[in-house]
C-alpha cells in the first residue's frame, strides 16, 4: 500500500482517566487498505520541544465513515501536547506504516497490556469479519490503566487481569486462567517483559504467535535504521519489517 502524508481533521476526542485519550481522525482518504497492527506517524503540532513525529498504532478504523482512531497514553512532551488538540483542528499524519498482524488462526488469543491494548480493537474486528471470535485478554497494573474496555466487549470474550486485583483476575496476563486454554494463534502487544513472557509460553506450547514491538523511531519509513530489533536474522527495522513479528524470528529476543 502506498504511504501517504495527509492532514487529518480531529473529529472527536475522548479522555479516559488518568492519562489516556482517543482521537478520531477524518482525512477524506479511503481507509480500506489499512491493516490491523499498522501504525501512523503523527506530527505533534505547535510544540517546539518535539521535532520528530510520534508513532501511534491504528486503534480503530471505520472504513465507511472514513475515520481512523488512535488510543494514546500521555507519557511525555509529545503525547501531552497531542492530548490537548482541539476537535476541529488538523493533524498531519503519515500512514499507514509497517507490517500488521496476519489475522490468522481459528482459536485466537489477543493479549494486551497498558497502551498495548490499542491495536487489538481493530484486530479483533478484523477477526470478527472472518467469523472468528477471539479471546481478548487485557492487563494492567490497576483497572484504570486499561482504558476503553467497553469498546472491546462486542468483539470477543473479554478477560481482564490486574496486578492489584481491582478488576478481573489478580496477577499477570500469563497467570490468567484463560491464558492456559488451547489456542492455535496468539497476538500480543504491550510492555516488553509481558510480550516476552507470552511469546516464551507460546513457543513452549507450540502455538503460532505474533508480537508488536514499540521501538523508538525517527523516520518510520525504514530509512534511518534507528528502530532496529535484534531478530534471529540480524537487525531488522521495526518500522518497516515490523512492528508485528512472528516469534519464529525472535528466539534471541525471547531469550534475552
Amino acid at each position, binding site marked *: 500500500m502506498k*504511504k501517504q502524508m495527509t492532514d487529518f481533521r480531529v473529529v472527536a476526542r475522548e479522555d479516559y482517566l488518568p492519562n489516556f485519550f482517543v482521537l478520531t481522525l477524518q482525512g477524506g482518504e479511503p481507509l480500506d487498505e489499512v491493516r490491523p497492527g499498522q501504525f501512523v506517524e503523527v506530527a505533534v503540532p505547535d510544540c517546539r520541544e518535539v*521535532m520528530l513525529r510520534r508513532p501511534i498504532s491504528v486503534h480503530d478504523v471505520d472504513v465507511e465513515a472514513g475515520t481512523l482512531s488512535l488510543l494514546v497514553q500521555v507519557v511525555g512532551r509529545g503525547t501531552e501536547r497531542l492530548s490537548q488538540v482541539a476537535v476541529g483542528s488538523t493533524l498531519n499524519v503519515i500512514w499507514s506504516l509497517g507490517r500488521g498482524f496476519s489475522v490468522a488462526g481459528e482459536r485466537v488469543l489477543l493479549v494486551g497490556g497498558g497502551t498495548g491494548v490499542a491495536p487489538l480493537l481493530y484486530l479483533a474486528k478484523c477477526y470478527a469479519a472472518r467469523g472468528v471470535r477471539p479471546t481478548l485478554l487485557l492487563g494492567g497494573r490497576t483497572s484504570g490503566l486499561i482504558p476503553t474496555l467497553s469498546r472491546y466487549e462486542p468483539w470477543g470474550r473479554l478477560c481482564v487481569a490486574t496486578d492489584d486485583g481491582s478488576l478481573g483476575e489478580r496477577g499477570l496476563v500469563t497467570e490468567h486462567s484463560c491464558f492456559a486454554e488451547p489456542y492455535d494463534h496468539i497476538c500480543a502487544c504491550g510492555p516488553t517483559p509481558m510480550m516476552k513472557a507470552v511469546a516464551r509460553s507460546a513457543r513452549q506450547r507450540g502455538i503460532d504467535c505474533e508480537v508488536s514491538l514499540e*521501538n523508538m523511531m525517527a523516520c518510520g519509513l525504514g530509512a534511518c535504521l534507528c528502530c*532496529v530489533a535484534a531478530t534471529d536474522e540480524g*537487525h531488522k527495522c521495526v518500522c518497516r519489517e515490523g512492528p508485528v513479528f512472528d516469534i519464529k524470528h525472535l528466539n534471541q529476543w525471547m531469550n534475552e
Partner: protein
Amino acid sequence: MEHISNEPSLQVRVASMTLRNPVMTASGTFGYGEEYADFVDLGHLGGIVVKGTTGSRREGNAYPRMAETPSGMLNAVGLQNVGVEAFCSEVYDRIKHFDTNVVVNVSGSTLEEYCQVAARIDALSAIPAIELNISCPNVKQGGMTFGTRPEMAAEVVAAVRSVFSRTLIVKLTPNVTNVVEIAQAVEEAGADSVSLINTLLGMAIDVERRRPMLSTITGGLSGPCVKPVAVRMVWQVAHAVKIPVIGLGGISTAADALEFLMAGARAVQVGTANFVDPTVSVRIVDGLADYCRRHHIADINDIVGIV
C-alpha cells in the same frame, strides 16, 4: 507587451557531476531513495547520497540508537549496511535507473577497506560520485579518526583517489579544532569536493533511569540545532579551498539552504529534516526557485559565496 521572465537556472556543478539543482539528500537519512518513493519524485532532486557502504555487511550498534534532543537528535546507528558486494549485486540494479545523481557514501575502518569499496563502486557506471565518509563518530575504529588528523585524511584520500576515477567527495567531521586544515589536506590529496558537516559528537542521559539514552553512550548530533556550527564551518572552508563545497547540517527550509549557498556551498544536503517531513527536499527546491524569482536571480550560482 511585458516580457515574461525566464525560469531561474538552478543547475550547479560539483566537479564533473552536474546537478539539476543544488539540493541533495544526506547519507543515512534517505535510505537508498526507495524508502521515500511514495513522497518524492527523485527526478526533482539534484542528487541523493545513499547509506554508508562498507567492505562487508555490518549489523551496526545495539538498540537504542536514537534520542531526540532540543531541535535535533542523537544517533548511533553505527553504519549498519548490507556491505559493498550485496550493494553491487542487489541494491545497484534497483536504483541505477533513478533520474538523479546517485552518490554512494563509502565508509570503512581501514585504509584497505575504503579502497576496496571505492574500487568496487568505480565499476558501477551509473554512480557519478562517491562521498568518502572519514567522519563517522559511531564506529569504534577508523571512521572519524581518519577525519580528525590532516596526514591520515590525506593518506586515505590519496589512496582512494588512485582507485576511483569519477567525482570524489570527502565528507568532513565537525569534531575537530581546525576544519580548514583537514579540508586543505584532502584537497591537496586529490579530493574533487568536500561535504560538511557530519554529525557532532554528543550525549544525552535519561535521568529517571540514570543511564545514557544511547547504547553507545555517545552519538552523533544532527538537525536544526547544528546549523549555525555547520554554516560557520562551510564559510571557513569555502574561503580556504578551490574545490566545490557541499554544505549540510540542520537544513529544513529553503532559507536554511540559502544560508549555506551564501556561505560558499555549491550544493547542499538535507538530512534529519526528511524524518520530519518526507517531502521537504522537494519543497526546498521549490523554495529556492521561488527565492530566485523574487530576487531576480537568473542563475543560482550567482549567490554562491556572496557572504
